[in-house]
């Protein structure tokens, strides 16, 4: 199967325009025989939303714009980043990623780790997600992460423990550090994490990132796919837009797990007991 990563610059606060852009990119990816198209974090809204958060929030089950986008996924799958406000959680806004398959939303992941330091202000405007839950999709078992989630390795561990074949991270990561190598220093950080996670999880790691600038911040691009075992199989350019298409074979997951046995020998119950003890101790 083929995974496409749409690396583009969403327009800040312009949901309609971004939906159109998603539809165009979906159509292009479909022509390139993509089975899964991954869009960046907050691709429907842009990143530096601040007070706009509540104005661009939508309920994926009801919003006609979102439904139109979902309907365009007939015969394939897509991961779409947006601001979620659901009827069950009125007035709470989540930085979310939806997995849509064949016209239907089958999972929504709400970003758990909201960076709020330096230039990041997410916890001022978003409610934190509380769960990492892998799920079965037409492309395999998938674990979704949003940006900073990926840098907390417990998040990938949970998806690994749950048997994810694909760990998919959608990001709006700015680039910082221009010390050399024709890339931002932070891009190398994400790639290092991708390599490590694909090695230890023996899963595919798919990382989408956006490009463009907002309020003086340049988003770094550099989307990538690592095959199980730390083998980089595709990378989009830094800073420039791209529609990256990468062949992916789940037989590689089987082969990696047969060879390295991290999954077979994993003991989530030992981790669970240890974590429980640590969490209890921290509550005392």
């Amino acid at each position: 199967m083929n995974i496409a990563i749409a690396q583009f610059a969403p327009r800040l606060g312009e949901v309609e325009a971004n939906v159109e852009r998603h539809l165009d990119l979906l159509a292009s990816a479909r022509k390139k025989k993509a089975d899964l198209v991954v869009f960046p974090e907050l691709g429907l809204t842009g990143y530096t939303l601040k007070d706009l958060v509540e104005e661009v929030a939508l309920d994926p089950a009801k919003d006609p714009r979102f439904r139109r986008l979902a309907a365009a996924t007939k015969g394939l799958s897509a991961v779409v980043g947006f601001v979620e406000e659901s009827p069950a959680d009125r007035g709470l806004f989540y930085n979310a990623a939806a997995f849509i398959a064949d016209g239907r939303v089958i999972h929504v992941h709400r970003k758990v780790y909201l960076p709020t330091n330096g230039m990041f202000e997410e916890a001022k405007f978003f409610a934190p997600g509380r769960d990492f839950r892998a799920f079965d999709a037409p492309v395999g078992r998938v674990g979704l992460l949003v940006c900073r989630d990926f840098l907390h390795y417990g998040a990938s561990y949970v998806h690994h423990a749950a048997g994810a074949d694909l760990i998919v991270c959608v990001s709006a990561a700015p680039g910082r550090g221009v010390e050399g190598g024709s890339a931002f220093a932070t891009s190398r950080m994400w790639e290092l994490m991708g390599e490590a996670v694909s090695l230890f999880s023996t899963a595919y790691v798919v990382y989408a990132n956006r490009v463009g600038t907002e309020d003086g911040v340049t988003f770094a691009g550099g989307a990538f796919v690592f095959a199980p075992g730390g083998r980089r199989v595709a990378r989009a350019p830094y800073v420039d837009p791209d529609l990256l298409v990468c062949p992916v074979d789940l037989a590689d997951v089987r082969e990696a797990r047969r060879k390295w046995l991290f999954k077979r020998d994993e003991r989530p119950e030992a981790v669970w007991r240890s974590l429980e003890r640590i969490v209890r101790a921290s509550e005392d």
Partner: protein
Amino acid sequence: MPPKIDAAFAEKVLVAFLRDEFARCGRRTGLLGLSGGLDSAVCAALAARALGPKNVLALIMPYGKAFPEDVRDALALARRLGVRHETIDIAPQVDAYFAAHPKATRLRRGNKMARERMSVLYDRSSVEGGLVIGTSNKTELLIGYGTIYGDMACAINPMGDLYKTQVREMARHLRVPAAIRGKIPTAGLWPARRGGAGGRRSLGRTGEAPCGS
């Protein structure tokens, strides 16, 4: 020392940043003050690449006959880059004000000059329907080495995340002439006490810093 940079990559990022922001604002023309010094030279070179030379208006704004070598270098650079340029003497508007304050310190005069240059840039910016491009670097911004509502006033500041040493690396990469690259940093507000390429000695060596007063 701040880390060395990959100047080609930094250029790519900053050119994309300028293009993006101008497109977002629906503007084509960038204006900047060209002093004949390093920072504004690098800025002009970046703007010419990002917007096209004909969409850059460089204003050379000497105070009377001060620093003729800087005016000469600025003119030469503007021609070399192919940007539109004009020379405007700010002495009449500065002198008109200080006629009533003949004992004003040179710090006051220096800050006033920076603000008069700003007022010219913004006046021309509205005529051109353009945006004023700031030329401050990160070193100046961090230590407050600039005049508030003077050289610090701008719509967009592409080099605000580059230290002075990194601006120098950019200058080499962008082939800014050696005559400009070799200059001692100065605010160009008043003549040096002794010698020098013009203006006060560099930060951390001698001289008073202009301040946002």
